[in-house]
């Protein structure tokens, strides 16, 4: 059996494993099996490639594999669950960088076969480099290394002009056949700068969508370089991910009710927070006993969980409290905002883990009309998703985002760790409202206190 046949067969199997793996990952029941299949595909692809005819530099290859793979494996293992999004971003950026590197080696060899291949190599390099630098910025922002959002004057014009110049330079490279080294270096530099400049003004709340977009970019770049290398595994995996990632990006943007153009060209900067206009009143504290009594004697309580519940791992306690209230004859429902937490679906996963039945969990559209009838809304570590500014304050950066209308309830109790602003750094007038009371503390301890008090009242 020749090495060529072995490699071709393996790549075929690898492509199938990737597609089946992704398919399995799109259903909660089979998701864990899916990643294992895709993982097997990756191992097979890597092993069999060592048999590629005519290759050398094996020592270098193994060192690079061990260093790159080992560092990423370790960092992925130790990272906190809440820091996952930025890790996805940085790994994705590295994939984009690898695609750009493939193109760079091809250009350095200088023996491109025809204009179409050169064009694909250049396009893949451009997209890959943009994804690389853009993802690095996204990582830096989510990790808190880069705190501020930079917005150039006439940002959109700069974006468009820079894109045009980079594309033009790519065209010159393709047409010239034998581009000079200087032209190539400038092309890669410009592409890197482009990715960084596009990403810099985008705020934290929009980041998941942007990361997903760069994920699709890297997929496309990998696919294009696959055509350049005539490597079917790269082509299939890259293009499948490119298409799937594009669709996923749209779905995510839709869940947040933000269009992609809005996110890229009209970003939430989080700097307009200074406005904070229209915030009147003071934050009023409430004791766990009062909170317990308010809920115990209510007819209807809606619970709005957020990132704070996830951090404190309070989901089990919250469900325990909900059950106590139900025993006392209170109607309890969970209201989930699509982007509550740091990842879409974050809250659903946690509540499911605690054993909350699906028919008690309601989406934004299903529950929003019920807030005016609720006696108490209990907000647990959520902020931006209940900020009325999104509905009323045109100057607010989150204006237009659909929110849970907690402010329309009779009473609002907010469990909150401190007095600070939320993830996006925007002040929340709900916390100052007449009918809002704050219960300070870690979500798990606070809910525990409430549980204790409900039991005392009931006994």
């Amino acid at each position, binding site marked *: 059996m020749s090495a060529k046949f072995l490699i071709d067969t393996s790549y075929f199997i690898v492509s199938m494993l990737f597609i089946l793996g992704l398919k399995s990952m*799109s259903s909660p029941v089979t998701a864990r099996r899916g*990643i294992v299949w895709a993982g097997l595909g990756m191992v097979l692809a890597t092993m069999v490639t060592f048999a590629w005819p005519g290759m050398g530099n094996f020592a270098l*290859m193994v060192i690079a594999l061990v260093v790159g793979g080992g560092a990423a494996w370790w960092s992925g293992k130790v990272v906190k669950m809440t820091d996952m999004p930025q890790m996805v971003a940085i790994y*994705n950026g590295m994939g984009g960088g*690898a695609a750009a590197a*493939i193109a760079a080696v091809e250009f350095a060899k200088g023996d491109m076969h025809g204009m179409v291949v050169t064009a694909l190599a250049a396009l893949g390099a451009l997209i890959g480099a943009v994804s690389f630098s853009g993802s690095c910025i996204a990582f830096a922002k989510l990790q808190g290394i880069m705190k501020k959002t930079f917005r150039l004057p006439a940002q959109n014009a700069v974006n468009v002009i820079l894109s045009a110049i980079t594309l033009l330079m790519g065209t010159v490279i393709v047409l010239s056949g034998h581009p000079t080294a200087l032209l190539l270096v400038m092309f890669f530099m410009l592409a890197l700068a482009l990715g960084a400049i596009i990403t810099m003004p985008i705020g934290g709340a929009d980041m998941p969508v942007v990361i997903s977009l760069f994920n699709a970019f890297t997929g496309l770049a*990998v696919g294009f370089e696959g055509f350049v290398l005539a490597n079917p595994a790269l082509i299939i995996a890259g293009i499948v991910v490119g298409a799937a990632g594009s669709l996923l990006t749209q*779905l995510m943007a839709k869940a947040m009710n933000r269009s992609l153009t809005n996110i890229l060209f009209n970003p939430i900067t989080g700097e307009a927070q200074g406005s904070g206009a229209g915030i009147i009143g003071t934050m009023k504290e409430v004791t766990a006993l009062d909170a317990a009594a308010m809920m115990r004697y209510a007819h209807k309580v809606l619970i709005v969980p957020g990132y704070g519940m996830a951090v404190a791992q309070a989901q089990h306690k919250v*469900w325990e409290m909900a059950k106590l209230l139900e025993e006392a004859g209170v109607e309890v429902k969970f209201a989930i905002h699509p982007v509550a937490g740091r990842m879409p679906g974050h809250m659903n996963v946690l509540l499911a883990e605690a054993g909350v039945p699906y028919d008690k969990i309601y989406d934004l559209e299903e529950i929003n009309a019920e807030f005016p009838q609720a006696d108490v809304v209990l907000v647990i570590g959520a902020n931006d998703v209940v900020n009325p500014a999104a509905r009323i304050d045109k100057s607010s950066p989150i204006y237009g985002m659909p929110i849970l209308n907690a402010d329309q309830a009779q009473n609002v109790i907010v469990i909150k760790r401190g007095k600070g602003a939320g993830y996006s750094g925007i002040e929340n007038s709900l916390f100052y409202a007449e009918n809002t009371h704050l219960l300070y503390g870690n979500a798990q301890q606070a809910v525990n206190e409430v549980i204790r008090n409900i039991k005392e009242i009931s006994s």
Partner: protein
Amino acid sequence: MESFAALYIFMLAAFTGYVVISRVPVILHTPLMSGSNFVHGVVLVGAMVQLGLATTPLEQTIGFIGVMLGAANAAGGYVVTERMLAMFKREKSGK
């Protein structure tokens, strides 16, 4: 014919990706993003070939960086996805 075959592959692969993702519940958006991030880590294989066939120091350097980045994409992507999906394993007791 060659280039047309490539076009067909492109079209079918794009369609496959689209179909695989459509009608996915919101709770799986992030794990899927992470999972597809892992899958394009196969770029590692392309980088390995480039490094393996590299002859000049420049090509070797860029190829080396490529393999390192590709390996990080694959390894990191796998670990993170695996950990995210582990959340779907229902705990036996409510603690």
